[in-house]
C-alpha cells in the first residue's frame, strides 16, 4: 500500500508541476496577479508530494519490503538501519527520486526566501523550475519508477547494497553532491526568467547570486566528500581519477566557479550581463549532461546504451530541449542587453574575465576528454580511453594561470588601476613566495624537486597576496583589529575561499610529488622499512562484522623506535555473496597519512600488502572546506537580506546612473 501511495504522490506532483510551468507564466504575460500568485501554492504542493513519495520509498526500505523491486535489489535484512535509509539513493531509480526531491526542495526554498522579488519575476522563476521538474518527474515515472513491484513472486531476501557503498561516505556524499548539481537549476531559472522579461540589471545578479553560491558550496563539499571517500574506501590511495563520473560532477563545478565570479562583476559593475546569463545556462546544461552521462550507460559502452535506449533517449531529448530552448531564447533576447560602463585593461573586470575564460577552457578540455571515447566508439574509430595524462596536461598549467590571476585580481580596483600602484602592493608577496618556494624543497626532502618549488611558490603566492589584500584594506583604520572589524562578510568570504584554494593547491601538488607507495610481501613477524618508517606485520585473523566476515591484518608502524600507529586493514567478504572488499587502514595527520591496504593472501600466512606514504593529503579536502565556509560567509553579507533590500536597491540604481553618466 505504501509504495502505491508513493507512486501516486509522485504522479500528483507531476500534475502540479505541469500547472506550475504553465499557469504563472501565462499570468506573467497577461498580467493577471491571481495566476502569478498561484505559483507559491503550486510549488509548495510539488514539494509536499515529492517529499511524501520520498518518505514512502524510505519506509519501504526500513520495513524490508522486498516486493518492491528497487528495495529487493538494493537492500538486505542484515543491512544496518542507517544504510537501509541511505540505500534509497543506492541505485538509478532512487537517485532520480532524490534528484526530484532536491529540485522540489530548491523550488520550495525560492517561495520562502525570494518573496521580495517583483511578482512577475517570481512567477517566471518558479515556472521555469516547474518545467525542469516536469522533465525529471516524467523521466522517473516513465522509465525508472522506483515503486515497481515484484509480484506475485516476491523474494525472501534482498540482494544487498553494493559493499562499496556501505560506508559513512555514502550517507553524506550523494545528497550533498545532488544538492549542488540540482542547485544550478535555480541560477538557470533566474537567468531564463530574466531573459523572458528582458530585465537584466544588477538587481537580477544580486537576487540570483546567493542561490548560485549555495549551490556552488554544496557542490564543492559534495566533490570533496566524494574524493575523500574514494581515497579511503576504494583502498588504492587515489583521491581523483579523472573518471567520467567524476568529470560529470566536476564540469558544473568549474563553470559554476566562473559563474559566481562573473555574477560578482555583473552585480557590482553591471557588465558581462549576457556572458553571465550564458554561464548560468551552461552550468545547468552541464549538470544535465552529467546526469545523462552517468545515467544512460553511454560511458560504459555505447552498446549498453543501445540495449536500454529508453532512458538515454529521454534524457538526451530533455537535454536538447533545455539547451536548445534556452539558447534560442538567449539568441533573441541577449542582443537587447547593453552594458553601461566600460573598463580598462588593468582592472578587476578584465582579470575576472580572464578567470572566466580560463575556467571555461578547462571545462572544454574536460568535456572533450570525457566525451571523446563515446564519439570514437560511435564513429567506429575503435575503443579508446583518455587517461589522466591528458587531463593533467591541460589542467595543471591552466590552474597555474588561474592562481596567478587570483593573486592579482583582488588587489586591482574596478574600472582602472595604475600599474605602479599594483606593482608596489604585489612586490612583497612575490618575494616571500619565491623565497619560501625555493627553500621548501631543501628542508622537506633529500632530493631537490623543482616542481615542488614551483608549486609552493604558486600556493604561497595565492595565500600571501590574499593576506596582503587584508592588510591593504585595513591600512587606514586606527588599528589593525579595528580595521578587521570594518571589513564586510563577503570580503571575508573571498579571503577564506582564496586561502582554501592555496591550501588545496599545496595539498594536491605536494601529495603528487612526494607520495610514495610500495607493494610488499609480508610474512607474519617480518619488519619492512619504507621511507624511514618501520612496519611490523603480526599476521591476519578473522573478525566478524554485522553483515560480513573479514580478514584483518595487524601492522605496527614505528619510527626511530617510537610507536606511530597500529593499523588494521581488512579484506571483507559480504555474507550476501559475491564481492570481496578491501578496507584500508589509515593513520591521518596534518602533514602526512600512512595508509595500508591488504592485497591477497600468499603462501604460508604471508600477505601482499600495499603501504602508502601520503604527505599533505588532508590539505586537499581542508582547502575545500575553507572554500565552502568562504561561500557561506559571502552570502551571509547583509546586503542580501530582505529588510535592507529596498534601501540597497535605491543605492544600486543611483550607482548605475552614476556609472552610466
Amino acid at each position, binding site marked *: 500500500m505504501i509504495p502505491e501511495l508513493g507512486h501516486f504522490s509522485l504522479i500528483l506532483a507531476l500534475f502540479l508541476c505541469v500547472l506550475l510551468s504553465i499557469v504563472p507564466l501565462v499570468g506573467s504575460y497577461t498580467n493577471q496577479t491571481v495566476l502569478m500568485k498561484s505559483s507559491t501554492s503550486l510549488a509548495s504542493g510539488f514539494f509536499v508530494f515529492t517529499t511524501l513519495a520520498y518518505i514512502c520509498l524510505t519506509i519501504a526500505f526500513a520495513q524490508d519490503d522486498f516486493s518492491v523491486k528497487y528495495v529487493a535489489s538494493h537492500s538486505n535484512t542484515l543491512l544496518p538501519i542507517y544504510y537501509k535509509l541511505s540505500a534509497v539513493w543506492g541505485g538509478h531509480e532512487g537517485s532520480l527520486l532524490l534528484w526530484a526531491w532536491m529540485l522540489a526542495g530548491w523550488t520550495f526554498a525560492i517561495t520562502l526566501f525570494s518573496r521580495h522579488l517583483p511578482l512577475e519575476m517570481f512567477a517566471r522563476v518558479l515556472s521555469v523550475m516547474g518545467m525542469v521538474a516536469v522533465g525529471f518527474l516524467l523521466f522517473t515515472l516513465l522509465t525508472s519508477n522506483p515503486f515497481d513491484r515484484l509480484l506475485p513472486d516476491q523474494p525472501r531476501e534482498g540482494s544487498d547494497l553494493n559493499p562499496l557503498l556501505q560506508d559513512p561516505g555514502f550517507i553524506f556524499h550523494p545528497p550533498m553532491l545532488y544538492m549542488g548539481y540540482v542547485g544550478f537549476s535555480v541560477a538557470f531559472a533566474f537567468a531564463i526568467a530574466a531573459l523572458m522579461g528582458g530585465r537584466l540589471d544588477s538587481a537580477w545578479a544580486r537576487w540570483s547570486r546567493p542561490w548560485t553560491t549555495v549551490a556552488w558550496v554544496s557542490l564543492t563539499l559534495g566533490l570533496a566528500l566524494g574524493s575523500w571517500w574514494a581515497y579511503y574506501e576504494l583502498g588504492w590511495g587515489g583521491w581523483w581519477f579523472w573518471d567520467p563520473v567524476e568529470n560529470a560532477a566536476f564540469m558544473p563545478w568549474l563553470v559554476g566557479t566562473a559563474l559566481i565570479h562573473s555574477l560578482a562583476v555583473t552585480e557590482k559593475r553591471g557588465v558581462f550581463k549576457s556572458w553571465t546569463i550564458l554561464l548560468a545556462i551552461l552550468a545547468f546544461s552541464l549538470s544535465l549532461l552529467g546526469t545523462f552521462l552517468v545515467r544512460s550507460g553511454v560511458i560504459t559502452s555505447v552498446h549498453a546504451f543501445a540495449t536500454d535506449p529508453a532512458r538515454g533517449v529521454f534524457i538526451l531529448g530533455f537535454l536538447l530541449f533545455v539547451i536548445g530552448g534556452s539558447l534560442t531564447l538567449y539568441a533573441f533576447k541577449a542582443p537587447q542587453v547593453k552594458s553601461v560602463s566600460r573598463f580598462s585593461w588593468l582592472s578587476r573586470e578584465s582579470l575576472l574575465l580572464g578567470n572566466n575564460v580560463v575556467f571555461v577552457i578547462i571545462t572544454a578540455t574536460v568535456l572533450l576528454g570525457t566525451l571523446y571515447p563515446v564519439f570514437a566508439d560511435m564513429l567506429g574509430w575503435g575503443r579508446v580511453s583518455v587517461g589522466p595524462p591528458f587531463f593533467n596536461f591541460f589542467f595543471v598549467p591552466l590552474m597555474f594561470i588561474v592562481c596567478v590571476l587570483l593573486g592579482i585580481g583582488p588587489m586591482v580596483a574596478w574600472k582602472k588601476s595604475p600599474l605602479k600602484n599594483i606593482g608596489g602592493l604585489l612586490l612583497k608577496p612575490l618575494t616571500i613566495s619565491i623565497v619560501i618556494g625555493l627553500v621548501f624543497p631543501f628542508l622537506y626532502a633529500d632530493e631537490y624537486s623543482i616542481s615542488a618549488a614551483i608549486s609552493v611558490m604558486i600556493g604561497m603566492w595565492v595565500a600571501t597576496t590574499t593576506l596582503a589584500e587584508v592588510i591593504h584594506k585595513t591600512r587606514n583604520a586606527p588599528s589593525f583589529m579595528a580595521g578587521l572589524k570594518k571589513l564586510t562578510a563577503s570580503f571575508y568570504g573571498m579571503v577564506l575561499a582564496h586561502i582554501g584554494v592555496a591550501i588545496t593547491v599545496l595539498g594536491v601538488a605536494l601529495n603528487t610529488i612526494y607520495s610514495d607507495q610500495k607493494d610488499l610481501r609480508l610474512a607474519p613477524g617480518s619488519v619492512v622499512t619504507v621511507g624511514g618508517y618501520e612496519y611490523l606485520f603480526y599476521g591476519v585473523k578473522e573478525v566478524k562484522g554485522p553483515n560480513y566476515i573479514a580478514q584483518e591484518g595487524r601492522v605496527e608502524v614505528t619510527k626511530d623506535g617510537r610507536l606511530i600507529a597500529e593499523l588494521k586493514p581488512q579484506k571483507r567478504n559480504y555474507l550476501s555473496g559475491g564481492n570481496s572488499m578491501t578496507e584500508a587502514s589509515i593513520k591521518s595527520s596534518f602533514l602526512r597519512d600512512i595508509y595500508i591496504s591488504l592485497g591477497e593472501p600468499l603462501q604460508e600466512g604471508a600477505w*601482499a600488502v600495499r603501504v602508502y606514504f601520503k604527505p599533505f593529503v588532508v590539505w586537499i579536502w581542508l582547502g575545500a572546506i575553507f572554500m565552502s565556509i568562504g561561500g557561506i560567509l559571502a552570502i551571509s553579507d547583509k546586503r542580501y537580506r530582505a529588510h535592507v533590500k529596498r534601501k540597497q536597491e535605491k543605492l544600486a540604481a543611483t550607482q548605475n546612473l552614476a556609472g552610466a553618466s
Partner: protein
Amino acid sequence: MHPARKQRLYIVLFIVAFASIAIGLIVFALRQNLDLFYPPSKIAAGEAPLETHIRAGGCVLPGSVVRSTTNLDVEFEITDGPAKVKVYYSGILPDLFEEGEAAVVSGKLNPEGHFMATQVLAKHDENYTPPEVADLAGEGADHQKTCEVISYDS
C-alpha cells in the same frame, strides 16, 4: 572606431586567438594520450604496436596464473577464444581478479609479444564485464556471461 567597439573587437580577437591555441593543444594532447584497446587475437596477429602504451583485455585463462614465491611478480594469460597473450605484472591484483573472469590490462608489449602490464583492472562487481571484453564475444551476446561462454580449449 568607437572606443567601446574597439574594446569589444580586441576582446573577440583575444578569445579567438586563445581558443585556437587551446584547441590545437587539445588535439595534440589527445593524440599523445589515447590508449587504444586491442583484443588478444589482434596482438597475436601482430597488429598491435610494440613498446607503445596500449590496453588489452580478455578472460583470464584458468590455470595460467603463476605467482612468484619471493615477491609480488605474477604472470597469467588472457584470451578471447582464438588467441592468447601472456601478461607479466608486479604488484597487487584487484579484489575481483579471478581465473575464468574478465580482466583489462594496460601497459606495453615487449618485442617477444608479451604484455608488460603496469595496471590490471578486473570487473567492478560480479554482474559487470568491461565493455571491451564483452564485445569480444560478439554483438548481442549476454554481457554478464562472456567469460562463461568463451572456449578455452584452443
